[in-house]
């Protein structure tokens, strides 16, 4: 039917936008989380407080609020961001905050003996963190991080609220024209499930690749 061709075509476009957002925001969020988490554990009082504050704010604000502030609020102080980049920034801040908590937890879970051994062969604190602690901490955090990315895929739908033409936005538009709600949103749901399935599969491979022992 014409409807399906039109809808699926537009949905595909929306999917591309969704994927673009996620593929940019996910790595950025992980990096932000790593930095914040490490800062929180190893920074002095000032650095770890700043890191804590950032984490607390972006975990505490609903993602929608963050998006609205970035897109509707910032122009009031002279900062104008496009819908796409406001959305990406919001995702990075939100996921980064959550990931920093997972990273922090996994750093703290590395046994003290590893640190003692590193120091006993003459490593500086920096070397100890970089070569001994973080490699182990990151491995332990992989399941939580991949869970967080799965959430990001789901919550990417919220970008519609600031005008990004992603999958949900497209579906909403079609719904308001054709009113074939069950079909439209079921198809959308299945699409999200499919993307998440693929993402989960990729993460399983990543986890296997980095497991010790292999």
């Amino acid at each position: 039917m014409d409807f399906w061709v039109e809808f699926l075509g537009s949905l595909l476009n929306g999917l591309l936008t969704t994927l673009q957002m996620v593929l940019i925001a996910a790595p950025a969020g992980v990096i932000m989380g790593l930095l914040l988490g490490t800062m929180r554990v190893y920074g002095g009082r000032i650095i770890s407080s700043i890191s804590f504050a950032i984490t607390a704010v972006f975990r505490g604000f609903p993602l929608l609020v963050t998006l609205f502030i970035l897109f509707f609020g910032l122009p009031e102080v002279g900062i104008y961001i496009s819908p796409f980049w406001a959305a990406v920034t919001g995702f990075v801040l939100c996921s980064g905050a959550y990931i920093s908590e997972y990273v922090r937890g996994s750093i703290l879970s590395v046994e003290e003996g590893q640190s003692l051994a590193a120091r006993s062969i003459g490593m500086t604190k920096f070397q100890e963190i970089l070569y001994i602690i973080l490699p182990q901490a990151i491995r332990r955090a992989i399941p939580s991080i991949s869970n967080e990315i799965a959430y990001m895929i789901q919550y990417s739908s919220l970008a519609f609220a600031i005008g990004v033409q992603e999958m949900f936005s497209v579906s909403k538009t079609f719904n308001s024209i054709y009113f074939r709600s069950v079909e439209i949103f079921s198809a959308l749901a299945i699409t999200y499930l499919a993307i998440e399935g693929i993402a989960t599969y990729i993460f399983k491979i990543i986890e296997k690749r980095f497991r010790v022992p292999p």
Partner: protein
Amino acid sequence: MTSYSFFLSYIPFIAEGALWTICLVGGGIGLGFIIGIPVALGQVYGGRTLRYVIEPYLWFFRGVPLLVQLFLFYWGLLPSIGFKLDPLETSILVLGLRSGAYQSQIFRSAMESVEKGQFLAAMSIGMSRGQAMLYIILPQALRISIPGWANEYAIMLKDSAICFSLGVMEILTRARYTAIATGMALLPYLFAGIFFILLTNLGTGILNTAYKRLRIPGSIGV
């Protein structure tokens, strides 16, 4: 400045949204609890046929975005079975189904972490399976689950904001109206954000105090 005081006059309006937010959260977690416990029991003790029902439920309600679920139910599924629910009711239904999926997992892992020996000990003093569940396993599992529930509350609180998309008059919806009415966006949304943080801390604070009071000394992992 007049626009600043204009905004301040809207604060009660935004704050009133907390009532709707609490309805959403309370209803969602409550419904989720009622669904979650049986699902968890079904997963741990049920047979294979039960799993054919439970697993798709979990997969759908944890994997599909909340936004999509809300629209699917409100515009699609409910009308198609002739059920008329308003935005608030639909939201609570969907939040509850979703929360049930997550809570069932919290509860399932809590039950699995109650030592096997507890069950055997209960049976050996003559309790039936049902009694062992009711008096020995469940009370411990419920206590162990409290941190998980505190987390679920925090998540649910933030998810409730998504219900703005159906027009529920909760905090974010009202902040949005305020922004449109006053022409100022930054203040209303910042206020909303801070308000959410306060509600989160209040709720988790209460749950954590309850947890400390009810805690089993020496229990695992906490």
